[in-house]
């Protein structure tokens, strides 16, 4: 009995050591097995803004000088013909400041056929980041033909077959 009791821990220790050595060997050799290929599907790259990457620029090449998120950018039929309706949320500025900024930007670029309306969100904190919604009524424009200029999360041109998120 004394012998078996003494042997058991030793054999167990040997087994653990052998297992450890085998695992270590596998880890050391792992670079030779190739590389795993994660898909990254849960953190896709954020699509670029189609207004600033040359796909769907604003008339006159105007760039907005405040933070914003485009919500939609559609061509709509009106009584006076087709118009481009751009809806965005503006950040860290009031609606009044945002409208002034946009109008002066278009004026400087010599674009006159533009209407801008902004509505501050009701009930947000005074220091909230996203402050309100702006609608820009713009002359229609033609897109670039590049494939990325058709990516809906970049262009914000959504089609009816895209499921409502809720």
């Amino acid at each position, binding site marked *: *009995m004394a012998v*078996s009791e003494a042997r*058991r821990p030793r054999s167990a220790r040997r087994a653990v050591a052998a297992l450890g050595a085998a695992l270590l060997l*596998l*880890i*050391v050799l*792992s*670079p030779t*097995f*190739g*590389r*795993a*290929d*994660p*898909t*990254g*599907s*849960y*953190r896709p790259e*954020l699509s670029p803004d189609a207004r600033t990457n040359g796909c769907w620029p604003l008339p006159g090449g105007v760039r907005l000088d405040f*933070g*914003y*998120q485009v*919500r939609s950018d559609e061509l709509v039929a009106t009584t006076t013909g087709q118009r481009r309706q751009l809806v965005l*949320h503006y*950040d*860290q500025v009031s609606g009044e400041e945002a409208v002034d900024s946009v109008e002066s930007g278009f004026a400087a670029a010599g674009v006159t056929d533009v209407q801008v309306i902004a509505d501050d*969100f009701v*009930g*947000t*904190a005074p220091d*909230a*980041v*996203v402050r309100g*919604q702006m609608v820009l009524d713009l002359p229609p424009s033609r897109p670039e033909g590049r494939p990325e200029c058709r990516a*809906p*999360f970049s262009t*914000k041109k*959504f089609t009816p077959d*895209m*499921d*409502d*998120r*809720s």
Partner: protein
Amino acid sequence: MPSTVLDEEVHARHGRSLVSDPPGPAGLLARRWADLERAQRVLLGLVAAVVLLRVGLYPGTAGTPVYGDEAYYVDAARALSNLVRDLVSFSGPDTAELSQNVAGNGWFMPGMSILLTPLFVVVPDAPIELVRAYLGLASTALLLLAVLGVRRHLGRVSAGAVLVVPGLVPMYAVFGFAAYGDLVAGLLVLMLLTQAVALVRRTRAADRGAGPEPVAAWRHGIHLGLLGIAAVYFRSSVSILVVGVLAVTLVAGVLLARAQWRRLVATMVAAGAAFLVLLAPWSAYASHELGGRVLTTTSVPTVLANTFGDRDDVCYGECDPGSSIWFSPLRYSREVARATGISEMQAAAEMSVYARADVTAESYARDVLDNLSRYLRNPAGFARIFESPTAPYPTAEVVGALTYLMVFPAFLVGLVMLLYVDRRGAGAQVQSLLVKVAIGALLVQPFVHIAGSRYWMTLGPLLGLSAALLYGARRSRGRPVAGDVATLAWLTRLQVVLVVGAVTAATVVVALAV
């Protein structure tokens, strides 16, 4: 378990000739089986049934493609396996790959990914069949390891009960092949609870000067802390449970062994330290990658918005169509972060406040009840999802039917456990307290999150323990209770507080909802 040599010596002493009649492996097994007590045979039979059930269900699940959040866990494991390769080959890690796949959106902690990493270290392009087999082996081994601990510290009845529920519930067995953290977190919670009971028992024994030399406080504390943080890494929502279980363990331990309070506090300090030391690397890494403070996960604001707020206002209006209620708000918050330089978490927090502007106590209560219903009503909801398109035989119907038959009564047992005040000895009362706190903490989920068919997987082992406790209480009815009456009264009062708390919470929610 006696060694072969010892067995042979025993039998030789009983006059059997080892030389003339050498037993083969089958003979040895038969002899060991004959030596076992009936309860041991039942336990071994249950273990065999647990293993056979999984072997039988594997072909029906093996080919199921990665589903939902499994995508994150598997991708993060792939990226971590590449990190291992880079480290052993002394090349710089692919930080962009790690950021995209491990930190990701900060929605999940990487416990399941760490579990899967060794597989991808050895087989970088492991097919889904191998991934599911690996997960099945790991989850089954963990279940059996947890049951061993339960048998040692809580008794055979509890061990048998856990082997039946959740061990023999078919949906639970199928979920063992899934790369979600809920099931593993539940088993780690069971191990935490078992160790908590063991701590109280050893502390009492030390207080009385009886029993073996107690394990050093810091060692026991680190053990508890490791189990707690491991559970949180698999399912961050069990954080509340871990804190609750450790707090109740401390209180119960001090009540039962006042002279040992310093030792108990030292144990809990060690547990807390181990917990925080292992939480810190993830918190620091996720905070660094996501540009804001992340403690465990980042999903709470969007979760609250989607669960209790107006989903049509989460993005200050409707979010983009074409993706889910999770990814669309995420994209919006990332766009805000890109435009303004604030963190996407801050953006999500403000979005959440806006979407919840119209939440009232009544609407919140109605949503809580709806979540509770989702939590409970379809425990086999993943049966069809995890039925492989290449399954050689259909499993979903049988898995579903048997799961309903087993789990609904188990839910009832859990409810009774929440409401039942155990008045037996200290050991039973401490278990009752801990199980109540654990079930109660898991039921916080419907108060903060859209619930679903997989959340009961974390609860499952506690239902088995509940059944064993209630069975023990029924068997002991009428027997005298040993122990210090005043201390037992305090434990009973604590149970009553928990029961009253649960009933009050339920009453308030129902009253507000209707």
